[in-house]
């Protein structure tokens, strides 16, 4: 992001695209895929080195999914692990000078949040059918208004939380670099370290909340039996 608030755009078939966001997204995707390939090549039955780390993450994820979603959740594991890795990579590349996070663009975060919500509703309808629609009208039909607000709020909060955190982090880095003289790097370094922490935390939060929403739709509950 070279100038705050200004985005380079291109027009393709009458559609407008933020080209920098797209480039950074592809970069983040490439990083994720390369890391995943490096970590998972040479898999052995007796683990060694990186494999132990990768297995630890996947085992932890599986245990989380099993606890939150039950046995149907396993099919969502690649989505969730992909979401986490992509968000982590996206958040972190924005901290490299001359680069921007794909997640500092509301198009990315809102896109992902809407995708999660659409998946939640589709899976809910697929697994629970009538019960899924009925649960919006519980305990009394009047509650449908509150439930609708909640459902609309879900993607908006997901998207804006991530977008705001990442964009604020990048803006403040630029502001601090402009404010402080070059011999006084301490505030910038502190903020950079804090941004690294925030990047990780926001990736975790987005992923965990997505898991919680998906769990609602996928988990077997008593009403179903």
């Amino acid at each position, binding site marked *: 992001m070279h100038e705050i608030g200004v985005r380079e755009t291109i027009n*393709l078939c009458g559609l407008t695209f*933020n080209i920098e966001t797209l480039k950074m997204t592809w970069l983040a995707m490439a990083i994720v895929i390369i890391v995943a390939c490096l970590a998972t090549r040479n*898999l052995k039955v007796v683990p060694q080195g990186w494999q132990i780390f990768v297995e630890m993450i996947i085992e932890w994820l599986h245990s989380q999914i099993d606890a939150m979603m039950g046995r149907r959740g396993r099919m969502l594991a*690649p989505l969730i692990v992909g*979401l986490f890795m992509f968000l982590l990579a996206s958040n972190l590349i924005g901290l490299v000078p001359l680069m921007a996070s794909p997640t500092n663009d509301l198009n990315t975060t809102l896109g992902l949040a809407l*995708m999660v919500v659409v998946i939640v509703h589709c899976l809910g309808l697929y697994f629970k059918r009538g019960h899924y629609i009925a649960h919006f009208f519980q305990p009394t039909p009047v509650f449908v208004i509150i439930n609708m607000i909640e459902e609309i709020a879900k993607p908006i909060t997901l998207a804006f939380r991530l977008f705001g955190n990442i964009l604020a982090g990048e803006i403040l880095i630029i502001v601090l670099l402009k404010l402080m003289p070059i011999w006084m790097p301490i505030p910038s370094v502190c903020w950079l370290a804090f941004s690294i922490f925030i990047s990780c935390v926001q990736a975790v939060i987005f992923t965990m909340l997505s898991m919680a929403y998906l769990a609602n739709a996928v988990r077997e509950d008593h009403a179903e039996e």
Partner: protein
Amino acid sequence: MIEINATIIAQVLNFLILVVILRAVAYKPVARLLQQRSDKIKNSLEQAEADRKAAEQTLAQYKAQLSDAQQKAQAIVEKANLTARQEHDAAVAETRKEIERMKQTAQAEIESERNRAFEEMKSQIVTLSLAAAGKIVTKNLDTKENDKLVNDFISKLNKDMFADLK
């Protein structure tokens, strides 16, 4: 700064492509490997359990065989002891019989020897008596008293000695 445009669709598509690639490249091999490993561990545990059971069975078998062998050995020893005692008793009895028999033989021999000695002695006594008598006779042939003595002696000798011997 906040404008929604077609990028949103592109980002969703990008992410879905990423998920598909990740699933194929990274997630599936790892998940398959984890499954393989848990299967292998399960198999190993089952195998170990089966091995342990087999070992226990073999041990029980061996123990049974050992106790059986010990019983057999005990029986053999007892039988041998019994046989030895019987043989010993038989030998003792045999020896006793033998001793008895030898004693009898010896007694019989002693008896016959004694008889023979007595016969010999008797004949010698007779001879000596005759000689003595002859001497007395030659000295006091005329004496009636002497005759009577000799006669008495001989008759007594005959009566007593032979009666004792017979």
